[in-house]
């Protein structure tokens, strides 16, 4: 598969200056910016993981004193929960797959030298860094971070007296998210313009790798949804500081104190509509790039065309469109006209169709392939598994009557951690193992450590999040720091919480294996050669100096090409047009 013996000539690489210097530079190079986004997300994910560990420990061991933090109070627990959600959703799942790997690979994969607007790209990166720093500052100000969850429902989030974190911490959260919106919009504009304008000759839309398609659709979602969030947080800020009452209803009583608002008729539901009009596309922003990566890797390691390429593209587009029509399913218990409930429920169920198309096509691609079970493929198959497990609870929660019971229980926590958290992260791991040579001067990560990491993470993910379904079905509410001794009906199930925490610790330990492998391979990884995975797409092609890239082939042409004189079983996109796929390789 690979010819990894290092030769001194291969060591020389354009990105040779120390990694630390590279990621701290104000570079306009797309690969450097991709790496910078990646490391930003890495810091965010480690912080988010640490917060989740503290929360899990507190649930089973309330008296535990954490070094530097002391005893965890209920409001501290909620602050950590808010920050865990915010960091993971915005700075990990919206940043790493799209801005991180997108910047790293999009220009290379379409045969462009740069993004369309390189300086704008640098600006959006550093704006994201500013947003991240502001968000972290919320943890350290008086009162701490906000406690109303990453969804920040008013009136709780709009009234300073409602909670300790609702002072400066909440303001910092709002400012940080507004800045993040701005950065994401700049990034999305860049992605769309690059994809539409800078493709190499011959790179038609239907020859683009599915990764490029996924970044393209995701950028459209970002463009259309983050603006709405920006408008929503603007109104929230106005309610908090300028005396308006967009979200504040009449007769508010907070902690036993009546809150006088100037105008009485504001509606907390307005926030929910605006927020979820952003929030639901946001979950597709998090998962679509993962779908693209999975399609790409499964085809590469099955040595087969993607099963029904066009169906994959159209299903991605229809997921994008439908994603904007279903926000109401987050609000079934908030009060809504039953006709709307019906419409939102039906539209939500319809999303199962394109999702099912994608799942079946992944399995169809694997079917009958000459599968190479490398670590990236393991994680991609893990993605499919988690996507199905997490996805199947979606139609369950889309039933208004069932949702009324399951709303705000651990069942929902299990659902979105499986499909958004774990599946998203599995795609990230797959991408990291696969494109590591593109990140760090042609080096590969260690396969043995990779396999250990995969199996620990895979088993850990299921063992952690599967039992949460049972807790939820029994009626265990989410967002409670302690429930021992208060709710009779679930006392017998509480040992499950201990089980979950133990497996969460295993899951976190497994990531230490990854981190060790990652940082070790940066310096000591095997050299990969130019195309270690026998991949077909342009990022692995090394043009001769002065040679222009012309695309002559589709993105996934695998098969037996020996009849045409080649020893390889694949045709790169930039190969001569006379290399054609073998007639025996029937198109699905």
């Amino acid at each position, binding site marked *: 598969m690979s010819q990894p013996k290092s030769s001194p000539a291969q060591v020389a690489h354009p990105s040779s200056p120390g990694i630390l210097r590279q990621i701290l530079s104000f570079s306009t190079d797309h690969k450097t910016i991709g790496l910078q986004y990646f490391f930003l997300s890495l810091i965010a994910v480690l912080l988010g993981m640490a917060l989740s560990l503290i929360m899990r420990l507190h649930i089973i061991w309330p008296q535990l004193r954490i070094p530097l933090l002391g005893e965890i109070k209920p409001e501290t627990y909620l602050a950590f929960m808010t920050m865990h959600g915010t960091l993971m959703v915005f700075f990990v799942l919206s940043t790493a797959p799209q801005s991180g790997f997108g910047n790293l690979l999009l220009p290379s994969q379409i045969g462009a030298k740069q993004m369309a607007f390189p300086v704008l790209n640098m600006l959006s990166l550093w704006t994201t860094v500013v947003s991240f720093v502001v968000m972290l500052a919320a943890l350290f100000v008086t009162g701490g971070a906000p406690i109303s969850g990453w969804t920040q429902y008013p009136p709780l989030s709009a009234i300073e007296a409602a909670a300790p974190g609702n002072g400066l911490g909440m303001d910092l959260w709002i400012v940080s998210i507004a800045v993040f919106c701005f950065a994401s919009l700049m990034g999305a504009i860049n992605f769309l313009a690059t994809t539409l304008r800078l493709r190499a000759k011959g790179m038609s839309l239907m020859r683009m790798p599915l990764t490029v398609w996924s970044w393209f659709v995701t950028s459209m979602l970002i463009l259309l949804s983050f603006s709405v969030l920006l408008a929503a947080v603007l109104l929230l800020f106005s309610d908090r500081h300028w005396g308006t009452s967009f979200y504040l209803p009449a007769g508010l009583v907070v902690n036993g104190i009546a809150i006088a608002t100037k105008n009485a008729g504001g509606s907390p539901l307005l926030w929910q509509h605006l927020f979820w009009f952003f929030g639901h596309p946001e979950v597709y922003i998090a998962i679509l790039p993962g779908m693209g990566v999975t399609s790409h890797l499964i085809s590469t390691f099955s040595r087969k065309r993607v099963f029904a390429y066009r169906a994959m593209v159209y299903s991605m587009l229809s997921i994008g469109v439908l994603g904007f029509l279903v926000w109401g399913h987050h609000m079934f218990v908030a009060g809504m006209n039953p006709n709307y409930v019906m419409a939102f429920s039906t539209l939500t169920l319809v999303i199962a169709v394109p999702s099912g198309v994608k799942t079946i096509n992944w399995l169809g691609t694997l079917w009958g392939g000459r599968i190479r079970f490398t670590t990236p493929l393991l994680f991609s198959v893990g993605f499919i598994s988690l996507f199905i497990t997490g996805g199947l609870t979606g139609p369950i929660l889309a039933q208004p009557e069932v949702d009324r019971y399951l709303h705000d229980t651990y069942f929902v926590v299990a659902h979105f951690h499986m499909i958004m958290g774990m599946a998203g992260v599995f795609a990230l791991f797959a991408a990291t193992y696969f494109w590591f040579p593109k990140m760090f001067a042609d080096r590969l990560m260690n396969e043995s450590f990779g396999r250990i990491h995969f199996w620990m993470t895979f088993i850990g993910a299921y063992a952690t999040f599967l039992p949460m379904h049972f807790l939820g079905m029994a009626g265990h509410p989410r967002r409670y720091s302690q429930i021992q001794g208060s709710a009779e009906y679930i006392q017998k199930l509480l040992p499950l919480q201990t089980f979950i925490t133990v497996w969460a610790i295993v899951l976190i330990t497994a990531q230490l294996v990854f981190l060790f492998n990652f940082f070790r391979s940066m310096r000591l990884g095997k050299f990969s050669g130019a195309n270690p995975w026998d991949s077909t797409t342009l990022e692995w092609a090394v043009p001769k100096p002065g040679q222009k890239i012309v695309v002559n082939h589709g993105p996934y042409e695998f098969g037996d090409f020996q009849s045409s004189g*080649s020893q390889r079983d694949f045709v790169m996109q930039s190969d001569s047009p006379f290399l054609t796929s073998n007639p025996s390789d029937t198109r699905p």
Partner: protein
Amino acid sequence: MSKSSSTISHGTKEAEPKLGGRGPSVPPIVGWGGDDWDNRPQGRRGPRERLHRYRLGIGLALVSIFIIFIALTSAYIVRMGTGHVDTITGDYIVDWKPLTLPGILWVNTILLIVSSVSMEFARRQVFREPLVTEEWLGMGTPTRTASLPWLGTTLVLGSAFLIGQVFAWRELYSRGVFLATNPSSSFFFMLTGAHAIHLTGGMVALMWAATVGIMARPLETRQIATDVSAWYWHAMGALWVYIFILLRFVR
């Protein structure tokens, strides 16, 4: 186009497919001699490649800006029609009080529409064929002298609009109408304020285009600066007309 087959080496030993002999020749792309723009490096494919890229960029940015205002105005329309149930009396109260707009807004609207016209003149001057040809022939920079006065006019009209908006806000203050007075005034200040901020961004873009013109940067750069600012300016004008119609006639 040269006859090289467009294969790219990818580092493996079997980089070049063995086709036997020299293989069939690549049919030349039917073209116009040296005018095969596709064969040129990116950024040099035709006189308008960069321009089109920047136009696309500003168009996409405008999509996201319009979405912000669609979100705000849909909230405006919904809020207008909703009320609340008084917890004590049980009455349904709609607390929206229609806002009488300051008359100066009509003047401002006309100013902004006229500024859009002058901006369009500035934009067309940098693309005018005879002037561009003169520049190509090295006969000075006539597109600058033709477009800069119109840019200046637009800047003056734009500033007049912004000052007019401040007068409108002050008139409402003097009537005792502030941001938090009533939901209608909240939305009025929010919409006009957000628009003013975006228009200020447009002023900055105009100043950039003027600076680029005064410094006599290359023609392509001047064309891009003026063209992109013009489209942004037109969009802000259209956005204002939309907001104004909404505030004036739907209240």
